[in-house]
């Protein structure tokens, strides 16, 4: 297992008022993302435990693009990863933000 942690400044606070959501499951090629509204509005953090080691650079790039696109200020994301591909990671992160902002359940 490999542990990775990224902190970013986020220009905007994530919308809505939900305190937390969880999306996805931990399975081969899949992951769960727990999003919690626990940080100051201008910050976000992504904390990852992954079964696939040696993909740090890719995670860094996926997370940076995600923060740029969605600006999830105030959210802490905790991820348990079963070796998901970057497209799945990006999708789950987007789903988590969408769910906590209340667009979809």
């Amino acid at each position, binding site marked *: 297992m490999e542990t990775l942690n990224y902190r970013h400044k986020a220009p905007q606070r994530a919308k809505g008022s939900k305190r937390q959501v969880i999306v996805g499951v931990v399975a081969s090629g899949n992951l769960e993302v727990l999003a919690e509204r626990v940080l100051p509005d201008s910050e976000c953090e992504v904390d990852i435990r992954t079964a696939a080691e040696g993909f740090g650079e890719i995670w860094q790039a996926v997370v940076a693009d995600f923060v740029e696109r969605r600006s999830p200020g105030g959210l802490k994301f905790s991820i348990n990863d079963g*070796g998901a*591909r970057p*497209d799945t990671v990006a*999708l789950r992160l*987007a789903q988590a933000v969408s769910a906590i902002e209340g667009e979809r359940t």
Partner: protein
Amino acid sequence: MTTWDNAQRLRESRKRAGAPYAQGKRVAKKDATALLEAVIRPGDRVCLEGDNQKQADLLATALAAVNREKIHDLHMVQSGVVLPEHLDLFELGIARRLDYAYSGPQSQRIAKLLFGGKIELGAVHTYLELFARYYVDLTPQVALIVAVSADREGNLYTGPNTEDTPAIVEATAFKDGIVIAQVNEIVDKVPRVDIPGDWVDFVIESDKPFYVEPLFTRDPGAITETQILTAMLAIKGIYAPYGVQRLNHGIGFNTAAIELLLPTYGERLGLKGKVASHWALNPHPTLIPAIESGWVKQVHSFGSEVGMDDYIRARPDVFFTGPDGSLRSNRAFSQVAGLYACDMFIGSTLQIDLQGNSSTVTADRVAGFGGAPNMGSDARGRRHPSQPWLQAGKEADPDSPAALRRGRKLVVQIGETFGDKNVPLFVENLDALKLATKLKLDLAPVMVYGDDVTHIVTEEGIANLLLCRNNDEREHAIRGVAGYTDVGRGRDRKLVQQLRERGVIRRPEDLGIDPLDADRRLLAARSIKDLVRWSGDLYAPPSKFRNW
């Protein structure tokens, strides 16, 4: 004095040698190997029928059991190297030289035998090329073929899986070769004549039906959200703007997703009747919902598909069927149809390089080509116009006078930027190159050449290579949809942004697609059981696909 009938006399002597084992044309299963030992001569070119679907499995086993003192150094000229027996022939020294097209399940072992020098390789072909060479320089002296039933005269009924049989038998029978058929049963009257009896020399009744691989069955249950996203991009970004009506789909979950999105997402976009109506395609079970929803006018098939026979029989307006009601497939004709009469091929692959060349070869596997390169290539001999073909030609070459401009077939590669086990789809250099070096091949096994590819679709968007004006643009169009692979992360962001502004790269948001809409609930069928329901209980999937 010159004699002009040596081959005919050789043919007669082969028939005489086989006659003691036959009653009429009929040979008992127990005498199969003895018949082959009598008829085949060392060094013969032999076609053992089998492709990515049906297999002359009884004859393969019988040939692998011949005495190698009597039969050796055969030159196998066959579509598929699929059964273990096909390679046993080389390990046992019965065969030495090989010309073939496809080796899916044996791809690893064939690489070992090639590397170990057990196989002297002629070439790896496409199906159509190999069939072509049957008529020029690889004509079989003996063809070992497979059919459903035969009558006493040797008339053969191939059933829905006609596939390669006519192409093989025509070449063999009319150039003084011997044709031996295994059949599931001998009957008084065959349901229809697929191969006339006077082209067939010997018939062996098998004790079990020949094997057919359900290669074109994709379980909708395994289609991922990302695959659905790529399918949405393809439909909205390619099918719709080009108005593609005549097409072929490869095997894979991305194209299965497209088939299952036509009646839902495609319907919503108002595309019914405007795209995807005429097909060169095997009877994919995942096409059932589109057929039932009235999208599909006509389908011609290379082969059949396990479990689809009753459904096809009940939909003769859509499929090609015989007077007996069952499907008539024909690989050679369907390949020609895919090459010349389709405006688009779309399929997935394992590796794409920076020039757009693609390959399904990995370093230790030689999977062969099958038919994809014929579908996935521009037919330079094509002369009839069609809207998508003309439009693609114009995009590639806007400045030439329209009347002198060639059209282009749309050749689309579709996939996710990372495959199984996080293996990247995009690479600097194809593994096929390494393999070519290792095996000292003249050509690296490239499935679709970069200069034939017109579009690449990934979850990152669509790269339209027709609009690229130089190699640098082309490379960056590819990098631009390569996501987080090394190739993708090596892109120049500014250049990619410029390409995006010109529509060379189109992101999901450029097409008005929200990745979060890529939901499995969009699929017209989400399980094999759903497909059965769509078919009105006519589709009977093989047991391995059931969960009931």
